[in-house]
């Protein structure tokens, strides 16, 4: 049916718009139908029954950033592998060696972060995990 190149992607846009419409409709409906009788206790941030101390905008571990950064780098690695995987049958052994060098170099970085303790989340008990 959709022999045309662009026509193949149009349904995704339609689907996304309908999903967005649905999500909006659900939120609106809940807002219209649901009753509202707010009290001070209901409106305070949940803190297991204690009186809240401070707000949530606090500093958190740098490990989260590190994981996000490493994720991007390894994701780039994975994306490089996709087109290679698709034509590996044509590249034959040459393609295999080519990729082995590539993965090998990236793996050096992987072992570096492993040995540096970046992947240890146990805290001080690991000794090296002072990130």
């Amino acid at each position, binding site marked *: 049916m959709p022999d045309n190149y662009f026509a193949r992607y149009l349904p*995704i846009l339609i*689907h996304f718009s309908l999903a967005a419409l649905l*999500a909006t409709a659900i939120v609106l409906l809940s807002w219209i*139908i649901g009753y509202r009788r*707010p009290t001070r206790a209901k409106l305070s941030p*949940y803190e297991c029954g204690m009186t809240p101390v401070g707000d949530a905008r606090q500093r958190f571990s740098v490990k989260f950033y590190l994981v*996000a950064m490493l*994720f991007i780098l390894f994701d780039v690695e994975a994306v490089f592998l996709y087109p290679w995987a698709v034509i590996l049958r044509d590249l034959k*052994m040459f393609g295999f060696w080519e990729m082995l060098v590539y993965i090998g170099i990236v793996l050096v970085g992987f072992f570096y972060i492993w040995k540096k303790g970046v*992947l240890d989340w146990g805290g001080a008990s690991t000794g090296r995990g002072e990130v």
Partner: protein
Amino acid sequence: MNLTTFIIVSVIKTVIALFVLLTAVAYSVWLERKVVGHIQNRWGPTRVGPFGLLQPLADGAKFLFKEDLIPPHVYKPLYIAAPMLAVMFALTSISVIPIGNVVTIGNIKTPLQITDVNIGLLIVLGITSLGVYGVALAGWSSNSKYSLLGGLRASAQMVSYEISLGLSLVGVLILAGSFSLRAIVDAQAGTFWGFIPRWNIFQGQIIAFFIYLTAAYAETNRVPFDLPEAETELVAGYHTEYSAMKFAMFFMAEYANMITVACLASLLFLGGWHGPLFGPPLLQAILPVFWFGLRVFMFLFIYIWVRGTLPRFRYDQLMAFGWKFLLPMAIANLVITALIVAIRS
């Protein structure tokens, strides 16, 4: 076929797909409560309708009538947008997933999928990777400590396991030589020696299959990787401050993502809709969809079974497992697959 017909057909397909998906979401919640109930020697829902079958409807109505609380300490625009984003992305990734062969109704030939694109797998991966925003923004905009911790944990966990998930698919790509989900399924047709089906799982991708499944469990924040909503320490994680339908929307997104994962697992590793065909033409047309649905159901059941059986990881164990075990395994698997394919060709 002109443009108007095409758009109308697409809209009809989309509406049907969304309806089926949302029904499936509602009934996987019911199934989960029922199965987990039986695992724990309880009955699960029994009161509303036979076997509690109308429970999802009752739940939905209850969520609608609950108080829609917007606490003053939240950052309002994003607090409202976060559950919407989560649901939107979760529902959209189904758009490129095929559920069966091409069917002919009257003189219109249409594939049983909303659209068949050449980069189908990439689109699913891309939309899944966008799903992290719903969770991260919910945790941040709630301005509550539990929510922030839950959101951070969830995002870090999702991005960590996304790498293993992406790498586990490379083996399948090598075997199929295409990103199109339909082409990947077609590459798994036929049998070895007449009785073993040529599914990717029997073509040496069994390790990749388990890596994919584990990583996907972590992607969807399910047991044993449900730390973002670990109720014993974080109350409810990133949706602590949500109520009524906005709370329910995170669950809709979670179950819709589970169904997407189950569909992908069936398509990529278990041969999609391939299965024995017999009987009259009409039955032969329906059977592929049935075989596909059976696989998806099996995966959903395993999801629930795992939830009823396994304890939760600790956060450092979770990160160590993802980075130090799954990632090296995924790389080893793809190198070995590549070596075998390269030698053979």
